[in-house]
Each structure stands twice: as C-alpha cells, then as structure tokens.
C-alpha cells in the first residue's frame, strides 16, 4: 500500500484521526518524529513555531544570492539589477499596476495548486484550466456582445469558471474512475488546451479573421475591466477568495474532510469520508479558480483579446507560489505579490540593463528548488523540522 502517512512497520495510529481540524502548515504543534524532544524555547523556539514563514523567506534569500552570482557571471551588477527590478515594480505607476495585474491571476492559480495539495493531489494543470476559462470568456464576450457590459462580465465569469472547473474535472474523473495519475493527465490537458485554443483562434470559429495574427475578437468596451488607478478589478476578488478558501479549509466540514483525506485516506475512509468525492470537489474548485484567473487575464488586460501566449507561465508560477506558501491559502498572497513583482519588473531589466528577462524564470526556478528542499528546514531546525509534503506515494496506486 502506498500511503505516505503510514510508513510500513509503524503501528502507531495515524495523526489524522485527531478530531480537531488542525492546520499543520501554520501553528501546528511540532511533531517530533522519534523520541519526544521538548519544544525549544527562546529565539529558536520562536523560529521553530514560525518555520512555515521562516523557511520560505530563507529560500527566497538564498535564491536571490544564487541569482546574484548568475547575474554577476553575465557581467552585470546584481545589486543594481535587483534595485531596478523592484523600483520598477513597486515605485512606478505603470510598474505597480503591472504588479497588481500579475498578482491577481497568480493568487488564483496559487490557490488552484494549494487546495489539491491538501487532499494529496498535485494539480499541474493550472495552466490549461486558466486557458479554458480565458477562452470561455472570449467566446461569451463575442457571442453575447450585445448584452449590457456588467451583465456580460458576470456571464463571462460564470462560463469561464465552469469551463476551468470542467477542464480540471476531466483529470479528477480519470483519477477516480480509471486511476490515471493527475500529474500526467493535467499535463496532457495543458497541451490539449494549447492545441484546441490555437485552432479556435487561428482560423477556427472564435478567430478574428480581420487580424493578421491568431487572436479572438476583442472584448466589447462595456465589458472591459479597465483598472481603477493602480487597482485592477480582479485583485480584491482574488484576495477575498484566498480568505474564503482559508476559512473553508479551516472552519467548514468540507475543509475538514478534504484535509483528512489528504492526511490519511484510509482513516478518512473509516470515518465515512469519500475520497472520490473529495478529489472531485477539490479539483473542481481549483479548476474554477484557475478559470477565473483566465477570465481576468482576458477582461482586465490590454489588448482584451485571447491570443496565444496570454497565459504565459502563470500555471507553473502557481506551483512555485503554492509551495512557497507551503500550501497555506493565505500564504499565496505574499508569494503571489513577490512573483508578480518579479514578472512585472522583468522588462525593465531588459530595457535598462540588457539582462534577459528570463533571469526571472531562473530566479523563480531556484526559489522553487530552495523552498522544496527539506535540507534547509532540517539544517536549521534539526529534529524540530515539520514534515514535508509527501505526494509520490500515490503514484503506483
């Protein structure tokens, strides 16, 4: 049996039987793995209790140090580069707007990865689900272009969310009925979304044939969510959803069921919680959130058209964000702001210093690497380090 919470040879009952819904990612009692070590006091104790925040910060700092070495190796001044990057993304009007616009979908795709993590699922398909939502909104915006603007926005959001949820549900159904691992199926669904949408907007039924490049029709002016100053419409929505998801996971029966399945699906089964139902619900919610990210990408960003590459690498940034946040829904907010600022500031590196904007991809990749390596937590906290997420046990099942 491939269950991570029950290593062979350990007879101790699984901790998931605990009736109180405890959020292990945050103020969790530190579980000593072997031999009960007394919880440390003083500075170390403070750090141990807050390691869910301390570890990601150390990871980001380490990533920036390694990034600085790489920038130096290219013959540039890393301090100046970082200064330009963040000056642009936080201290200029256009840059700050871009940061906020990029943060919006990033929070949502971060949540789309974080929620399934709680159930022990790894949703790599945020990218495809986002694209499904975006193209759904593009279709509605064209087909119902005579509707009044606000109504059109609402219909576009509903359709986009449903399409995103549907796209994720394909993977969930393949998992629950046929045992296809979600990592492979969601990746395949990403590629399928890319191809299908390329057909739709490149000479297919949604294409604006009056344009020289593949694109959908542009969103009618009344339905465009032009930003209010530096605040894009989607950002408060994303923030509220992050809080709602955190509340749902912590305070509702559904959240308790999802987390129980994620901790130990056998214990959950004995307690009468359906793994199948939890898988389907978690993936549908995730797909809906990613789909909503796609809707905002279409409705609130110039040129208000669906074009190839609109999704960028948002779906994959979502993985980095969810792991930086250690699966905590509220943690996705600062993580998304950081990633959004780096993405928004990247062009200025290109224009002002001549550093390739792909340095941001490298920085994010190294951050992801640093935050996921358990050695960092082990090195600082030794036996007090909390256990890492274990997902691979579901591979053969």
């Amino acid at each position: 049996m491939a269950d991570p919470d029950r290593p062979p040879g350990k007879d101790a009952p699984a901790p998931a039987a605990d009736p109180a819904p405890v959020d292990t990612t945050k103020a969790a009692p530190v579980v000593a793995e072997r031999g009960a070590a007394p919880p440390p006091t003083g500075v170390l104790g403070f750090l141990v209790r807050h390691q869910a925040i301390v570890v990601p910060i150390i990871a980001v700092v380490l990533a920036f140090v390694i990034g600085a070495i790489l920038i130096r190796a290219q013959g540039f001044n890393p301090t100046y580069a970082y200064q330009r990057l963040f000056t642009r993304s936080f201290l200029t009007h256009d840059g700050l707007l871009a940061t906020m616009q990029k943060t919006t979908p990033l929070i949502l795709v971060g949540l789309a990865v974080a929620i399934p993590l709680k159930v022990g699922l790894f949703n790599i398909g945020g990218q495809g689900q986002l694209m499904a939502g975006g193209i759904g909104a593009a279709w509605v915006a064209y087909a119902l272009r005579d509707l009044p603007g606000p109504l059109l926005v609402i219909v576009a959001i509903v359709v986009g969310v449903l399409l995103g949820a549907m796209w994720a549900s394909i993977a969930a159904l393949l998992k629950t009925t046929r045992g296809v691992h979600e990592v492979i199926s969601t990746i395949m669904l990403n590629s399928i979304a890319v191809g299908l949408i390329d057909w739709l907007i490149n000479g297919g039924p949604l294409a604006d044939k009056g344009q020289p490049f593949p694109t959908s029709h542009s969103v009618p002016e009344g339905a465009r969510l032009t930003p209010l100053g530096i605040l894009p419409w989607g950002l408060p929505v994303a923030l509220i959803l992050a809080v709602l998801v955190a509340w749902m996971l912590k305070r509702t029966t559904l959240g308790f069921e999802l987390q129980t399945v994620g901790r130990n699906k056998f214990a959950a089964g004995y307690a009468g919680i359906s793994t199948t139902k939890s898988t389907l619900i978690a993936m549908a919610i995730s797909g809906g959130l990613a789909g909503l990210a796609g809707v905002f990408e279409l409705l609130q960003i110039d040129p208000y058209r669906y074009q190839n590459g609109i999704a960028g690498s948002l779906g994959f940034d979502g993985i980095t964000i969810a792991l930086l946040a250690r699966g905590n829904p509220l943690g996705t907010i600062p993580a998304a702001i950081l990633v959004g600022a780096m993405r928004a500031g990247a062009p200025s590196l290109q224009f002002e210093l001549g550093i390739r904007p792909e340095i941001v991809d490298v920085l994010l990749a190294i951050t992801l690497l640093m935050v996921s390596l358990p050695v960092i937590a082990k090195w600082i906290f030794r036996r007090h380090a909390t256990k890492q997420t274990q997902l691979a046990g579901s591979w053969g099942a």
Partner: protein
Amino acid sequence: MPDMEWLSRNKIWVGTAALVLIGAYAFYAVNSNIAVSMFSYAWFLAVPLVLGAMVGVIGERSGVVNIGIEGQMLVGAFAGFFAAAATQSIVVGVIVGALSGIAMGAFLAFSTVVGQLDQIIAGVVINIVATGITSFYFESGKTIPRGLPNFDVPLLSKIPLIGPVFFSDGPIALFALIIVFVLHFLLFKTRWGLRTRAVGEYPSAADTAGINVIALRLFNVTAAGILAGLAGTYLSMEATSTFERGMSSGRGFLALAILIFGAWRPMRALAAALFFGFMQSLASQLQASDVVNIPQQFINLLPYVLTLVVLAAAAGRVRAPGAVGQPFVKGD
C-alpha cells in the same frame, strides 16, 4: 531459445507482434515506398519516447518516480547542441549531452533518495529549473557543423522494410533500439536486475537480504540520466540540427505514459512507443494525402489525447513496482 513455456505465457504478445509484422509486410507489398516512409517516420518519432521510457523503467523499477524526464531531455538537448556549437565538434556535443543527463539524474537521485524530497515535487522542480536555465542561456544564431550522420548497418540494413526503418538511422536511434534489449536482459537475467527489482518492490526485504538500497537507487537514477540526456541530444543533433526553447514539448511525459502502458517492461514500452509513433505518422500521412481534412492542430494533439486514452485503458491491467514513490529509511 524461447522455450514452449515462455511462448504459452506470452502468447498474446507473440501473436500481436506476428500480426503487426504480417500487416506491415502486407502494406509493404502493396506500396513499398509509402510503407517505408511511414514506418521510418514512426520510428523517428518514437526514438526519444523509447529512451525516455527506459529512464522511467530504470527509475521506477528501483522505486523512484521520475517526472523530470522532460526537463532532463530539455537540458540534454540544450547542453549537447551548445557544446557542439562552441567546440564545433559533434562528438563533444553528444558526450556533453549525455553528461548533462547524468548531472540531472544525480540531482533527482540525491534530492529524493538522500534528501527525501518528495519524488513528484523533485521532478516538477527539475522541469521548471530546466525550462528557466535553458531559456536564460539560450543564444540564437548558433549552428553546429552538422547533424549526427545516418549510416547503414552492414547486412541488417538490407532486410526489406525493417532494414531501412531501423538500421539506416543515426547512432542515437540505433543505440535506443539496442538499449531496449540490453536493458531487458539486464533487468530480468542479471544480479543487478534482480536487486533493482527487489529494491523497487520491497526495499526493507532487500535491505534485510544485504542489498544497499540507498546506493543502488542512487546509482540507477543517476545512470538513467544518460539516456535522458541522449534523448535530448537526439532531438537537437540527430532529428534536427537546431535547438529551440521548450524543444522536448511534452515527450518526457509521453514517455511516462508509454512506460505505464508498457507495464514497466522495456520491450513492451518499445512496442508502446512504436504504436504512438505509428499513430502520429498515420495521421500525418492521411493529412498529407488529402484523405481526410483535419486541422493541423488536431494532428499535433493526437499524442496527448492518445496518452489519456491509453492510460485510462491500461489502468487496472498493469501494476506499478510496489515501493515506487516511497522514500526508504533504514530500520523504519
């Protein structure tokens, strides 16, 4: 020699193989040119999938999931191409491509086996790091002196149909074909193979029997990286002679599906990869000859849809190695 017991155990596979061969030769008799070009194209597409699937076979048979094949291939393609471009030597390119695969394999091995990083997260990290690094250091306008040359294997290339399809290709394609049979032999007929399977199936039992589980997993996953590196080098130096960003385009994941469809066995994975290649080649052929009018995008989607269908069909019929995905902690 295949004895009677082996035949009766594998009668479905032998029968299917015989039918496919008869079908292929019937096709060849009707139109030899189209048959050779279609099957050659199928093998051309299947080579990186075969190599990728062998990386997966070695890893998962030893108990380590490798989601990072895609990234390992991409780095192999990148390193091979740019090393060849810098030194203007294709031999150096192939060697560097293979070595970069070892480096990527070593990262997966040490982070998961020693560092106990979750194997799936480790693989996803490899893919994202590979994409970031290869696009940052990418330089356009570089060229390599030439792609790896095709050559005819003496005698074997004279066999009708099979000869031109399998035995007059480049060196990596030929290597891919050979490694399948070598790996099958190693896995099922040697001490290393028995130990590897034991470590992947029931590591604590293997440990009790005196096998060093950690060392064997480290060695296998690291060494398998060579094949991923060569798969990448095939893409940038044999199938084409250029490197593009994101050039592996999902082949690493197709390889994983092929591995599952092939029931974690080298020869069946080869058959599965050929099936994938053939379906794609068939679709292209139908498109090119105007038999059907399907948009090009749908032809390109075929392998991904096929993967989902194949996995949904294969589920429940095949069984993964028992300990795949689980870290081994001695005495736990």
